[in-house]
């Protein structure tokens, strides 16, 4: 573990830290909403047409988009930290983080396409 040369600072890290916490705040506010919606459906307060109306509303789509973006950012930041902690080989670390970025971006785009009904 002994260093032969002092590597200095990479001037990074605060961005990750900030985005992880910012996305956590967004999740804390928005994540309960879908569960409340499920409770409303199961309790009979909202019927199928009412549910579709709610989900179809522009404001709902906007909140849904925010939620999915915050979820992806938060999951990416959290998993990135885990890879950095547990994967000591730099090549594997970069590959895994890159692969995760591709998979999560794909998932995000697919989900956004559903939310905004792209392609009809």
């Amino acid at each position: 573990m002994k260093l032969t040369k002092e590597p200095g600072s990479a001037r990074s890290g605060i961005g990750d830290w900030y985005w992880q916490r910012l996305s956590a705040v967004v999740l804390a506010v928005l994540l309960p909403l879908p569960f409340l919606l499920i409770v409303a459906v199961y309790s009979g307060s909202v019927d199928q047409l009412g549910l579709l109306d709610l989900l179809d509303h522009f404001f709902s789509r906007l909140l849904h988009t925010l939620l999915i973006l915050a979820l992806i950012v938060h999951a990416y930041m959290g998993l990135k930290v885990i890879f950095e902690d547990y994967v000591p080989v730099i090549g594997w670390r970069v590959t895994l983080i890159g692969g995760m970025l591709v998979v999560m971006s794909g998932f995000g785009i697919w989900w956004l396409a559903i939310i905004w009904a792209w392609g009809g």
Partner: protein
Amino acid sequence: MSEMIRLSIFRFDPERDDKPFMQSYEVPVTKRGMKLLDALNYIKWELDGTLTYRRSCGEGVCGSDGLNINGVNGLACITPVTGLKQPVHVRPLPGMHVIRDLVVDMDHFFDQYRQIQPWMQTDTPTPEHERLQSPEERALLDGQYECILCACCTTSCPSWWWNGDRFLGPAVLLQANRWIVDSRDEATGRRLDQLEDAFRLYRCHQIMNCMEACPKELNPTAAIDSIKRKLLARKS
């Protein structure tokens, strides 16, 4: 016959042993308030002169005898033997290279300490008399300056075990904060620049083992949080 305590102590002599082993000893309780260091001294002086460990002041000031005691890091000289679960398992500080028995190589730890440049840095001319500090400014150093660099906190930190080559660890970051909050120091910006790094600082995941392990009851996690807040404040 006096009360006996049982100890199981980590032994390893790289010149003689292929691998480490635990050796059992029985030590009489020789006085009231007997500390673990007294038991180790008894073993070395009366039973087995080959047992190797560091010690100096014997009263929790020098930080030489940091050990892993029943799985928790602490100073042998201020840990009472009564109340410890027996046999008392005594091991070297975790995550460090063992030189022999309970003695570990502290070079890397002190290399990291040097990286934060732990001395007062000023740009303004030296005043005729001392650099003054108000009682309130001095109070900011409480809970920071008392660190004795025993490495109990740093070697109890999983983040340091995983990324100790780059993560500075709780003891060094506590010391970094000690200079950042010192009103007389004029290198705050440079110090923050040096710490702004995903590995050097942000590997701290608030596990808080450091706080549990510190024999001086300091809170390195809070110090690290203070550094993060200062970095955030200058960015926002």
